[in-house]
């Protein structure tokens, strides 16, 4: 039974969840950026699983990249990487970003 559960979990698609949300995307002005790096720190790497919107992923050179469009603006990545300084974090410009219908 556990095996079946794990299998069904593997197909949890965060994009399907984000699709229900409203966003006002500030094209060309990402509010979070990952600093250039050769090899990601442990903290930076953990964001590929910890970010609730799945914004962080590994590229083909095993570096961490971010796509901010689905960001829920929770601040988790900012706190995880506060000590390492791997990312630059600011809030989106006024009016942009996620718009919670219910919150």
């Amino acid at each position, binding site marked *: 039974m*556990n095996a079946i*559960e*794990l299998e*069904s*979990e593997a197909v*949890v698609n*965060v994009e399907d*969840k*984000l699709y*229900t*949300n409203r966003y*006002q995307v500030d094209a060309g002005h990402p509010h979070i950026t990952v600093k250039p790096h050769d090899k990601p720190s442990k*903290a930076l790497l*953990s964001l590929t*699983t*910890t970010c*609730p*919107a*799945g914004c962080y992923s590994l590229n083909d050179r095993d570096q961490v990249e971010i796509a901010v469009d689905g960001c*829920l*603006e*929770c*601040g*988790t990545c*900012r*706190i*995880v990487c*506060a*000590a390492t300084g791997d990312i630059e*974090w*600011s*809030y*989106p*410009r*006024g*009016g942009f*970003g*996620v*718009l*919670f*219908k*219910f*919150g």
Partner: protein
Amino acid sequence: MSKTFDAIVVGAGPSGNAAAYTMAKRGLRVLQLERGEYPGSKNVQGAILYSDALEKLVPDFREDAPLERHIIEQRMWMLDETSFVGMQYRSEEFNEERPNRYTIIRAEFDKWFSRRVREAGAVVLCETTVTGLIKDGKGKVIGVRTDRADGELFADVVVLGEGVNGLVGQSAGLRSELKPKEVALAVKEMHFMPQEVLENRFNLKGDEGLVIEAMGTVGPGLSGMGFIYTNKESLSVGIGCLVSDFTESGATPYDMIEAFKNHPSIKPLLAGSEAKEYSAHLIPEGGYKAIPEVYGDGWVIVGDAGQFVNSVHREGSNMAMTTGLLAGETIARLHRTREACTKLNLAAYKTALDDSYVMKDLKKYKDIPNYLHENNKTLLGLYPRLLGQAAQNWFRVDGTDKKTKENEILASFRKGRSVTGLIGDALKFARAWR
């Protein structure tokens, strides 16, 4: 824009709204800044509204506030992978004229609260992100910078109600950085279903509502907290655990909420519902010891930004409103007596906090966050499992005599945790609780 106000409030959540409302009601010229398109568009909560805190601000709030259901029943569940051991309290006495707790939908509620703030006379400016504080030569805060053109705004005092992930106070060095083991990450989904289905499923009538708070194993190898709150025709369903637990375990928040929703005890409650939003939010869990300096020359901190959350009782929005009220009253009093908002004078805010339930409760539980963090695996993993096994053994009728069953249950606890372990846990818990 270089207009001067008596007070600038950063943020339009419960704490900022409470502060702005209190000061505007007392005749101060208040400017409130909110980065969202409308108040509430950036705010996330379970959400439970505690009437007492709001009543002290807006006594007639029940007349037009968007309330979902008043809570008459509380279920507390300890989950293992296939079962739960629960405690339940339901009372007809919660069906009262002025109910004590309500479920709310924050986007709706915050819009209502903000309307009341504007009616009280405050100027509310949305779509404006505050980017920093302006200080004079002596270090006194005299205003804020925003992302608007010519966006410098000045006031006698700045009230920071900017929430848990408040960058303004952080970057100005007014408080230290949050730590991954002192803050929880919660994700939530809104599940809609026809009102009568919901009421039948949860044994509710009219505006009655209930709360399920779960802790334990929410999915294979994943432990944390979970919740279901009943709204009028939707359920707020969510999970949460410390940020450090996410980073260390490698579990994703979306797998975890999916596992919680698929738990055999939860899944039937959600059957046939439609998910319409997915949100995430941080919850300060550091408690009393994590509270920063909450006032200084020309500034005060209110709400989540000041770590005012009682994680044992899941209270935060009430503390946000109360801290906003107390800060607003302090500033209004200084304004009336024409005293400056210096650090010395704003200390009255801290005195008022210390006299209120906010600091008394947080102080009482000052050792709990550390206790929970250190005993996380035992409390959320081992004990729910042992209790579940014990309950199953006890209730299953299989020809084994009761004395043998008793011995098996005691042996399972001794084996799982050892007698010294059990006593140690009890003592540590008692000490932290006291």
